[in-house]
């Protein structure tokens, strides 16, 4: 069961649509808790174990999720792979003993069980189709509420341990690729815009404190006093505004500094095609430049879908699970270089 999940990519990585050049994926999440139980903040290990068992048993009774996995049953590199696919955060993994994951076979419906909130329902899409994703998440929510009975009151809505999530309990997010804004130095404007606003943005592939590859995740920080539709609308406006800024910066790159831009893209392509050792940092930044080249129509023999696949294949967790040779950092870097070289026909 797990082997099949590990071998296959989530459907949202393979299915590309409008905005896919810039949007790696978008996600709608609903945070819920079981009525009649304390939040995990105040539960003992024994109580957490009891809740995990209840959740796993309950999820097993629903037909929508073919895979229900207690995280303690996985190996370290398998947990890392799920973190790389964004199913669970690294913060959550710092204590995985009482956590569970429920996934459908396509890996676009993901439920995190027994974390800070008892249940986090997420639906993921490879495009920016937020309305459909939200309505899917809404149906799952109804189905799960039938089984579990969520903590809710009329004044405050769905009750959560974090007061940042109470009310709708809904967080919308999208991972966007913004290399042109980073190269032109205009990314600062995006941050300035958000500073006292209701959204947050952060790097996705971070090595230490540095954001590598110019991938960023935008999400809403407000959940109360608004309806789900209003959150969607506000989010959509914000993300489209950021995408527009990226498009403007891309235009600047091609029109004003065309040679320099092409040089950066082809140099990166050349290194990827010929390198014998590739660290994650190098890999992320070089493929980011090539991805920009593909979106601008400069690189024509690779597709966004190829790049998506290579991107995940080459992350440490994926490399280690899918290849027996990746035993240490050095071998991992050699393997990463070989993988991408073979893909590029180098």
């Amino acid at each position, binding site marked *: 069961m797990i082997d099949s999940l590990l071998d296959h990519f989530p459907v949202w990585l393979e299915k590309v649509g409008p905005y896919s050049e810039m949007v790696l994926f978008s996600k709608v999440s609903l945070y819920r808790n079981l*009525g009649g*139980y304390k*939040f995990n*903040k105040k539960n003992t290990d024994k109580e957490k174990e009891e809740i995990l068992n209840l959740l796993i048993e309950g999820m097993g009774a629903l037909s929508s999720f073919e895979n229900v996995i207690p995280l303690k049953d996985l190996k370290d590199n398998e947990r890392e792979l799920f973190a790389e696919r964004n199913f669970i955060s690294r913060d959550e993994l710092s204590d995985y003993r009482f956590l569970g994951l429920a996934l459908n076979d396509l890996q676009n419906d993901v439920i995190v069980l027994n974390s800070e909130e008892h249940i986090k329902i997420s639906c993921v899409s490879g495009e920016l189709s937020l309305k459909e994703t939200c309505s899917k998440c809404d149906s799952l929510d109804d189905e799960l509420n039938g089984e579990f*009975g*969520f903590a809710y009151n009329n*004044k405050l809505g769905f009750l959560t341990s974090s007061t940042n999530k109470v009310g*709708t309990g809904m967080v919308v997010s999208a991972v966007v690729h913004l290399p042109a804004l980073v190269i032109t130095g205009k990314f600062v404007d995006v941050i300035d815009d958000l500073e006292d606003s209701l959204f947050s943005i952060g790097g996705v592939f971070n090595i230490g404190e540095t954001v590598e590859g110019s991938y960023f995740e935008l999400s809403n920080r407000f959940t109360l*006093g608004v309806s789900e539709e209003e959150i969607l609308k506000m989010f959509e406006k914000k993300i489209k505004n950021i995408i527009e800024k990226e498009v403007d910066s891309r235009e600047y790159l091609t029109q004003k500094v065309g040679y320099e831009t092409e040089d950066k893209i082809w140099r990166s392509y050349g290194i990827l095609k010929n390198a014998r050792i590739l660290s994650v940092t190098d890999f992320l930044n070089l493929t980011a430049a090539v991805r920009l080249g593909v979106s601008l129509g400069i690189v024509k023999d690779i597709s966004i879908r190829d790049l998506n696949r290579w991107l995940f294949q080459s992350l440490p967790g994926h490399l280690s699970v899918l290849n027996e040779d990746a035993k240490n950092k050095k071998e991992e870097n050699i393997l990463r270089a070989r993988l991408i070289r073979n893909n590029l026909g180098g």
Partner: protein
Amino acid sequence: MKCELCGANNAKYKYYEVDSDTVREINICEQCAREKGVDIKSKEDSVVVESKTCPACGLTFREYKDSGNLGCVECYKSFEDQIKVFFKESQLGILHKGKEPVRNSKVIFVKKEILEMKKKLDNYVEYERFEEAVKLRDKIEARKEELKTIREKND
């Protein structure tokens, strides 16, 4: 000085009850401090600064402030005023405007009940109270049937 809460024991600690904008200082004894869920860090230290506590789960307001996480649904009542201040600063309103749950399930409550009955059953068996054990086992079976019916209705 006598404890300002029970009036019986000698006060040992200064207890600070923190509301949204006021701080009330109370002299209390060790027993009352423990009952309030105060984290007594050092026995020599006679001054403990602590804050309001949720009676249902024992979470202190300070713990909530530090982590941003509440301990149970009752915390929303226990710290209502303070949380309202937070909502005004960080949320778009203080009232829910989103969806309501379509149907509220009894499944989780019945399951919790079954779980507790099973624990009790283990005790009965351990202490060889077989007559009670048999009765309880029948009750558990009946509850399981009820669970099945609710699930079928939900489908």
